[in-house]
């Protein structure tokens, strides 16, 4: 039976699906890998900047 192209495409592409097993693997992956927290990233950048500053000042005083 002829139907609107849009509907026929929707029906076609909605058929393939991840199995329960594949979904479980992906959910497990998400639980295992915590996204980097913005706070900890900020602390890391501040720390690195402080180390660079100390190094620059030390070199300046040394020379």
């Amino acid at each position, binding site marked *: 039976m002829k139907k609107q*192209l*849009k509907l026929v495409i929707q029906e*076609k592409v909605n058929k*393939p699906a*991840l199995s329960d097993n594949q979904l479980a693997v992906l959910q497990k992956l998400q639980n295992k890998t915590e*996204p980097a927290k913005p706070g900890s990233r900020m602390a890391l950048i501040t720390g690195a900047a402080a180390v660079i500053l100390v190094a620059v000042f030390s070199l300046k005083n040394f020379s």
Partner: protein
Amino acid sequence: MFSNSQLQKLYRYAYVLTADEHSAHDLVQDAVESCLRQPPKKTGALVSYSLKIIHNRFIDMARREKRFPHTTLDEELIELDADNLLLEEMVITSSELDAVWLKLDAMEREILFLWAVEGYSTSQIADQLEISRGTILSRIHRLRKRLAKESSGGAV
């Protein structure tokens, strides 16, 4: 982070591109890992961000395997907007679509997916695929011709 329905959505998109279950699953896994490493800056943009990752990874993968067509896309714009409207009105059976689906290249299937399933306009498709709107209209023009040919049993 991703719900099961969002994962299914990503998988269907990846499947449209690759036409292969295993490659589609690999692409989704890759996109999920990538999102976890570097989440999108805009909240609520997780799915569209992931679709973009899948699209880019697919192109990288296909180029490595030399499956992606490198042909230059012409930008004939004559009556192309009208083609877009004709696509909206087009009727077809599922077996006719099945017959033509795997003969389409990945970009053509992707355009049809974004238009029919995601409800994107031609401009939004152009943004998503990072190509000009003229190219999208040109592709739609050719797609409509091929689909019309298929639904009329080869005679246009």
